[in-house]
C-alpha cells in the first residue's frame, strides 16, 4: 500500500462514561473521522494497566490512544486523576527507551464532545501515519 492510503491500526481505550459516549455522539452526529481505531471500552481510564498499552503494540497495533473523562469529571471521582500520574510515568518511560513519541497518546474527551473526539482521532491517525507501521514492539514469529 502506498503512503497515502496506508491506514494505521490504532487501539483506543475509551472510558465508558465520557470518551465512549463522546465517540457515540460523534457517530450519531455523523461526524467524519478516519476508520483507524479499534475501540476497547473500559470502565474508567483508571482501569488502564500499562501492560494493556504495550500488549496492544506487541500484538501489532501501530498506535495506542487512551481517553477518559476530563480531570474532575470522573464518574468514580478520582479514577482519572490517579491514572494521570500513571500515564505521565509510563509515557515518559516508553519514550525514554525509544518508542517514538506519538505512538502512545493520552487525551480527555467528555460525552458532549463529539467534535473533539473526531478531531482527536484525525490528529492521532495523522501522527501515527507519519511514523509508519509500528515494528519496534510488534512480535513477529
Amino acid at each position, binding site marked *: 500500500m502506498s503512503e497515502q492510503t496506508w491506514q494505521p491500526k490504532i487501539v483506543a481505550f475509551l472510558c465508558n462514561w465520557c470518551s465512549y459516549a463522546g465517540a457515540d455522539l460523534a457517530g450519531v452526529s455523523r461526524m467524519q473521522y478516519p476508520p483507524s481505531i479499534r475501540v476497547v471500552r473500559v470502565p474508567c481510564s483508571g482501569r488502564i494497566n500499562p*501492560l494493556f498499552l504495550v500488549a496492544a503494540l506487541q500484538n501489532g497495533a501501530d498506535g495506542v490512544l487512551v481517553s477518559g473523562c476530563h*480531570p474532575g469529571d470522573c464518574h468514580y471521582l*478520582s479514577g482519572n486523576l490517579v491514572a494521570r*500520574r500513571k500515564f*505521565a510515568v509510563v509515557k515518559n518511560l516508553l519514550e525514554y527507551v*525509544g518508542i517514538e513519541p506519538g505512538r502512545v497518546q493520552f487525551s480527555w474527551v467528555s460525552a458532549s464532545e463529539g467534535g473533539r473526539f473526531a478531531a482527536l482521532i484525525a490528529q492521532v491517525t495523522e501522527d501515527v501515519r507519519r511514523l509508519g507501521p509500528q515494528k519496534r*514492539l*510488534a*512480535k513477529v514469529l
Partner: protein
Amino acid sequence: MRDLANDIRMIAKDLFDQKRLDTLVGFEKGSAGARCRPVLIASAAEARSLAWDATCSNNLAVYLPFLFQRPPQRKGAEIPLPKVGFVVKGCDLRSIVALVKEKQAPRENLVLIGVPCRGMVDERKLAAAIDGAEIASLEDGDEKIAAALADGRSVSLGREEMLQDACLTCQQPVPEGVDVLIEGEARPVGDNGDSLVKSFAALAVSERWMRFQQEISRCIRCYACRQACPTCYCKECFAEMNSPAWIGVSTELTDAMIFHLIRIFHQAGRCVECDACMRACPMGIDLRTFTKKIAADVRELFGFTPGFDLETPPPLVTFTEDDSQEFITEPHKT
C-alpha cells in the same frame, strides 16, 4: 577505624537476650572469596557469626515480605507475627519503609539496627581490577582497599573507584528513624546521578531504542532482577500469569523488553536505586540506565523520593488536582 561488626554483634546479642527479637537478618562471612552473605539468625549465640564490611551490598529488605507471610488465620486464634530485626544501610531502610507503607509488615514488629554506610564494593569492578583473580581477604581502609589474593599477591585499590555506581550517587547513606543506630562514618552525599538519565535521554530516539534493544537482547529471563528487588514481591507476577498470558515466557526480544518495561514501571515511586536488580543480573545487563529513569521521573513529576518517612503516601496511589498534564493530546481546533 571503628569495628562496626563488633557493635552489630553486641547489639544483636542484647536484643535476643532481652527477648525483643525472634529472627535477625544480617550478614555473615561468605565461604568463598571475601564476600559477605545474608544470614538469618534466631538466637543470641548465633550473633557471633554476624559480620560487616565493604561487601555487604545486598538489599536485605528483600527477605521482609517472606518473613511476614502466614496462612489465613482463624479469628481469635491468630498466630502472632514474629519480631524481626534487620541490619540496615540507608538503601535497605528505604526499601523497608516502602514495604511497611504497603502493609507488608507492621513497623512495631520490626527492630531496625542502622549502620551508616561508606558505600559498598562493586564485585564486577573489583574483579576487573584484579583480572578475575580469587580473593582471599579484603582489608577496608579509609581510602584504599587492600586485597590479599589467593595466589599470595596483595593489591591495593582505590576505594572510591571500587564502589558501586549506586553508592557513588547515594543520597541517604545514614539510615534515619531506626531503633538502634550504630555510630560510624558515612559517605558524604554527592551528586544524585540523574545526569545518567539526562545524557541517555539526549540521544536520538532510534539510538535509544537500539541501545535498549542491545541491552535487553542479552536477557535470559531468569527473573533474578525481580527476585533480588525488595519491592518486587507479588505472589503472582504478570510475567507468569497464564490467564491471560500477557507475555510469552521465552527470551523472544519483544517479550523480554515488555517484561523489563513493566517491571521497571512497577517500581515507580518505590525504587530506592539500590541496584539490587543489576547486581543480581547474571548477564550484566545495564539495568541502571533504565531503572533510574523511573526514580528520576517520580522525583521530577511528583517531587517524591522514597525516604525514611512512613507518613507520605506512595506517589502513584495518590494525586493532586494540579498534576502536570502536558503530555495530554489536545486536538487542534478544526
